[in-house]
């Protein structure tokens, strides 16, 4: 029972992280219908930025974390400006191929700069984050993951529900033509969704780096896990991305814990295939509102 609870807690923590990272993916898709295949590489980039700032730059953890977030936010902006914007109005397939190209480019850059070895962050998490509830022990990494995820979720919830910019972003996702007619700066919304997506991808990259160590191939493979997550949740549902993330996270930890650790990376994709057969729009995919 204890083992079960332990796995449950870990699964939820990891799952939240997947969910938040998938949220960035969903945001780009909702705003501009682009599937971003470079998501995993963005994740890895975040982890390596942070690594450099911490180990080479010797900056304090909090400062490096914030700097990485800001840097990735800007990176997202630049990607949109230099790579995506010239393709506005072109066929969607070209844009998606472009993100595949971006993925290769980023991976190459990372290999060039940091090499393909496994790096680790110096241990910096305070023991105060350790939580013991009866017989369940939550490692500092996981409680930190939980904390960061919840903070991000609340911030994004507020942003999209309350702030004007958030509402403009949702309006573009909803009806682009109407948004244009009201003067919403659609290109700016695209840029912003890339920026936010890159930022949350980096954030999850850092946390996953703390848990598993920093390695290009592992991290970008984890980035691909957004696909089962978003397809489970429904490609265009941000809430679905979070729930999908938690489900995939739980599946992973449970197969790792009860079946075989080497199966944990396969199960999400098996689930993916089944979901596609049964519910092609995912659990929370948009069911068009039809007025009769």
């Amino acid at each position: 029972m204890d083992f079960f609870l332990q796995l449950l807690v870990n699964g939820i923590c990891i799952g939240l992280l997947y969910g938040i990272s998938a949220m960035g993916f969903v945001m780009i898709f909702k705003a501009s219908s682009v599937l971003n295949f470079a998501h995993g590489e963005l994740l890895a980039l975040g982890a390596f930025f942070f690594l450099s700032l911490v180990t080479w730059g010797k900056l304090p953890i909090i400062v490096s974390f914030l700097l990485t977030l800001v840097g990735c936010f800007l990176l997202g902006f630049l990607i949109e400006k230099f790579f995506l914007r010239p393709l506005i109005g072109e066929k969607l397939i070209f844009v998606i191929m472009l993100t595949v190209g971006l993925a290769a480019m980023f991976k190459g850059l990372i290999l060039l700069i940091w090499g393909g070895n496994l790096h680790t962050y110096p241990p910096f998490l305070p023991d105060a984050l350790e939580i013991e509830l009866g017989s369940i022990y939550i490692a500092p990494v996981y409680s930190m993951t939980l904390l960061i995820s919840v903070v991000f979720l609340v911030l994004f919830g507020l942003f999209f529900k309350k702030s004007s910019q958030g509402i403009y972003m949702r309006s573009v996702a909803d009806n682009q033509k109407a948004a244009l007619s009201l003067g919403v700066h659609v290109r700016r919304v695209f840029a912003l969704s890339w920026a936010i997506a890159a930022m949350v991808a980096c954030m999850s990259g850092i946390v996953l780096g703390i848990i598993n160590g920093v390695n290009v191939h592992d991290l970008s493979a984890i980035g691909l896990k957004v696909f089962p997550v978003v397809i489970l949740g429904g490609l265009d549902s941000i809430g679905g991305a979070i729930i999908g993330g938690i489900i995939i996270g739980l599946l992973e930890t449970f197969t790792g814990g009860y079946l075989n650790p080497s199966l944990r990376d396969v199960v999400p994709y098996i689930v993916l295939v089944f979901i596609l057969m049964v519910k092609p729009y995912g659990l929370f995919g948009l069911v068009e509102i039809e007025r009769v």
Partner: protein
Amino acid sequence: MADILLQLNNISVVYSDVIQVLKGVSLSVEKGHIVSLLGSNGAGKTTTLKAISGLLKPENGEVTDGEILYNGVNIQNQAPEFITRQGIIQVLEGRQPFKYLTIEENLRVGTATRPGKPYKQDLEMVYDYFPALVKRRKSLAGYCSGGELQMLVIGRALMAHPQLLMLDEPSLGLAPLVVLEIFRIIKKINEEHKTTIVLVEQNANMALQVAHYGYVMENGKIVMEGNSAELADNPDVKEFYLGMGASGTAKSYRDVKAYRRRKRWL
């Protein structure tokens, strides 16, 4: 000569580089007036509005000839972000709400031309014009009725403080009483805010009742213009757009032939 807010000089619009839809349209809109644009389907009314508001580009259309002057400034082929910030807001045909946003969020999108500025007062103003929206402010627009949606999209446009409001078929698919209500409010907006309004309508009867001036379009050209009263009295308009025979009786099939003949003659 009164103040001219908007002037179209002989504009042509071409879609996808080949399909010419407007063939030299000229019209002018006086400040503070309601101007209606009448015509059958495919006459180019909506295209004219889109040419003004800059919404042609996403549909691969372009103003190839002529000029559009707004307050004396040339605005043709500008981006919609720019044009809306000059105070021209188009309310699209078919209502086009943001279905997954609540009524209030929909209205807030109307502030996109001036982000970060206070908007509470404008919300009150819109709820004042359209009291029906108040009790639905928290519900998703996708679940509202056609009449509510039409009020919503007009209200959303008002949030932008337009100087020139362009309405594309506000009566489309609405019950006659609702249409009456919408037109009453359009008139009220024009009187209270001095908003200049361009009204595209199939319901020529209603349109000519509220408008000061009218244009009739056919095949991408303006074929007739005049004060609303004059237009409503014109035998051709009466026959073809107000649905009355020349003698005031119902039409028969023979008149359809007459329509074809007349159309060529025009």
